[in-house]
């Protein structure tokens, strides 16, 4: 059993609007799973179904191989995109209340809170009201409340919105550490650079349908076009171009380089390897740049959404 969470053909309609259409995803244990998609694709609906806030019209959700039970909420930590705290309640009181709602005992919650407050250096906020804190500070509290009960599944919906870069990094490190300690993380975001940085698996949802999913490396491998970016130094650029053109498909490339050299994208045929290309090039020119073009998550996202 390698998947912590599985959704089987989950569908959900709101009136005449189809929010999710037979969406199946598999979230491997210990992974950071990126749930991607344009606005209004159905990500939040899927997350709400996993959190049992909304019930699916058909399909089911398995946690650890068993159908989701109302009691399972204590295994899930959820940081929604639309988030907030009671403004006039004190930080400590509020955190205790929310922890107890997740099924923790008061004493246990207090102890865990102390640990987290010290870790994030926010211990002296205990008796402050939320309305006295800045937005970023409140977000930190919100993060602590989400992870406090040590859930095995963490769901973050746009976790970095509202954080400054320093705090965003802090939270990112905490997420990675929690994963290393055994938690599984589902991560819904538009920010592709954090997907690139954090996620090892992704699923792409577009117009209520899942259109792509799997291991990020595998997906990239599938999306790569065997194209290499090269920088060549030669005396006669036009001649060199002609020589290469006879053997490979080329197009103009654009990257930063110290030398005023010939920049090309060279696409290999399926039976050729990078070594073949390199050998051929070194025979004809001096190679000072050689780089395989790997599609970024953002490229894959845009390309896939456009094709659908």
């Amino acid at each position, binding site marked *: 059993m390698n998947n912590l969470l599985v959704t089987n053909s989950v569908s959900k309609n*709101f*009136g005449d609007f189809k929010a999710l259409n037979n969406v199946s995803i598999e979230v491997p244990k210990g992974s950071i799973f990126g749930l991607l998609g344009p606005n209004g694709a159905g990500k939040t609906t899927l997350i*709400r179904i996993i*959190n*049992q*806030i909304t019930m699916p019209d058909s399909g089911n959700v398995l946690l650890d191989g068993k159908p989701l039970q*109302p009691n399972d*909420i204590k295994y*899930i930590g*959820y*940081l*929604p995109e*639309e*988030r*907030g*705290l*009671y*403004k*006039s*309640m004190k930080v400590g009181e509020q955190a205790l*209340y*929310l922890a*107890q*709602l*997740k099924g923790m005992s*008061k004493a246990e919650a207090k102890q865990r809170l102390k640990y987290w407050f010290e870790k994030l250096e926010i211990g002296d906020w205990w008796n402050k009201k939320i309305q006295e804190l800045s937005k970023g500070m409140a977000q930190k509290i*919100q993060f602590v*409340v989400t992870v406090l009960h040590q859930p095995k599944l963490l769901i973050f919906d746009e976790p970095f919105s509202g954080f400054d870069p320093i705090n965003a990094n802090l939270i990112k490190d905490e997420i990675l550490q929690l994963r290393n300690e055994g938690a599984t993380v589902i991560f819904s975001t538009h920010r592709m650079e954090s997907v690139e940085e954090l996620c090892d698996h992704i699923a792409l949802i577009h117009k209520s349908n899942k259109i792509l999913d799997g291991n990020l490396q595998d997906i990239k491998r599938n999306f790569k076009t065997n194209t290499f970016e090269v920088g060549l130094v030669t005396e006669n650029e036009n001649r060199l171009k002609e020589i290469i053109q006879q053997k490979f498909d080329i197009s103009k490339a654009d990257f930063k380089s110290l030398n005023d050299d010939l920049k090309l994208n060279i696409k290999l045929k399926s039976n050729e390897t990078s070594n073949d290309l390199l050998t051929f090039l070194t025979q004809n020119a001096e190679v000072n740049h050689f780089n395989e073009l790997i599609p970024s998550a953002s490229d894959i996202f845009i390309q896939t959404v456009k094709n659908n």
Partner: protein
Amino acid sequence: MNHLSLIIKREYLTKVKNKSFIVMTILSPIIMIALFAVVAYLSQLNNNKERTISILDESGQISPIFKNTDNTTYNILSNISLDEAKAQVEKNQEYGLLHIANNTDLDEMAKSIRFYSEDTPSLTLISSLESKLEKKLTDLKLQQDGVDIEKITASRTSIDIAQESYQGEKTSKMDNIVKLAFGGFAGYLLFMFIIIYGNMIMRSVIEEKTSRIIEVIISSVKPIQLMMGKIIGTSLAGITQFVIWIILGTILLTVVSLIFGIDLAAMQTPQQEMMQQAMQAPEVQNQMQNLMTAIYNLPITNLVVAFILFFIGGYLLYSSLYAAIGAAVDNETDTQQFMLPILMPLILAVYVGVFTVIEDPHGTVSTVFSFIPFTSPVVMLMRIPFGVPIWQQLIALVLLIGTFMFTVWFAAKIYRVGILMYGKKPSYKELYKWLRY
């Protein structure tokens, strides 16, 4: 700990610890009592003012009826013309001058009576003068016709029809008054409670939406638990506030009347004063006795049990609707369009209670409205003191509980969808759609 009790506890504590709640709880009775005290004090000042009234009775037959009291001194003038009298009264700054011209025709004499004063005289004074004069002139007329006044006085009979049901229960007029007072009080209390604390529930639901905490909470507890927790927690805070009001009010009332020596019961409107004059008869003692028996005659156990059940049922019914409204809208200004359908049956209930139940507590209108769940809490509570068969009460209660369960289900549906909906001003059509989600 179980979720519901956690939510109730939080709702209760937040409400009770809220600054404006504390201020309102303490200040309201103080302001109320202060207001009463000021009014009582002022009216007492007014009553205590001593005044002198001159009376120029040219017939000489009437003036003996005016006897000096603590506040009013009657100055009987004689052998003086009207103009001289007016001048003298004005000079002495007396309150006024009553002039009775002499005339053998008593009707003419009655018409000629005038009261002269600097300012418009007080209504109480004029009424008391009028009643005195009326009585005297009637007596004089009777005498003129050769009727013996003594006999008339002796022949006066006071009637208070004793009422008895077929089962032998004795009742009196006073019974009805006490029943009305009790029913009215119960109905009005429920009405106030629903409006004040229903609104409080609604606001606290809206607050959860605007602070965006709702989704965090809803991922831990069921919406219906959250809603019930809110309703119960807020109600407990409401009961706390009510109890404090009553205790504080009683204490303050006692203290104020002790310190200032103001008899708050002495606050009287002219009408009350006139009524009292009319009642200055041995009947009064009788009435006191009747009052006691009337209270004693009330079906106390039935009333208390019914009050608690109908109060809770009615309150929960309406507050779940308030919670649903709170869930459906984004801010308080959007609640207007939904408030009317809630207030209408409530106001209707009070109207039916006040106008119909008093006239005919077991008539068709009263009976029907005491079964309809949206009006039954108020109307039934008003009817019960007049004796409603237990089976009717039970049917009304079952209907009420059934409807309550329906509205909670309905409200929970709206709530579940509504709390996660932002930025949309919902129409009734929209709400209908939510029910099917």
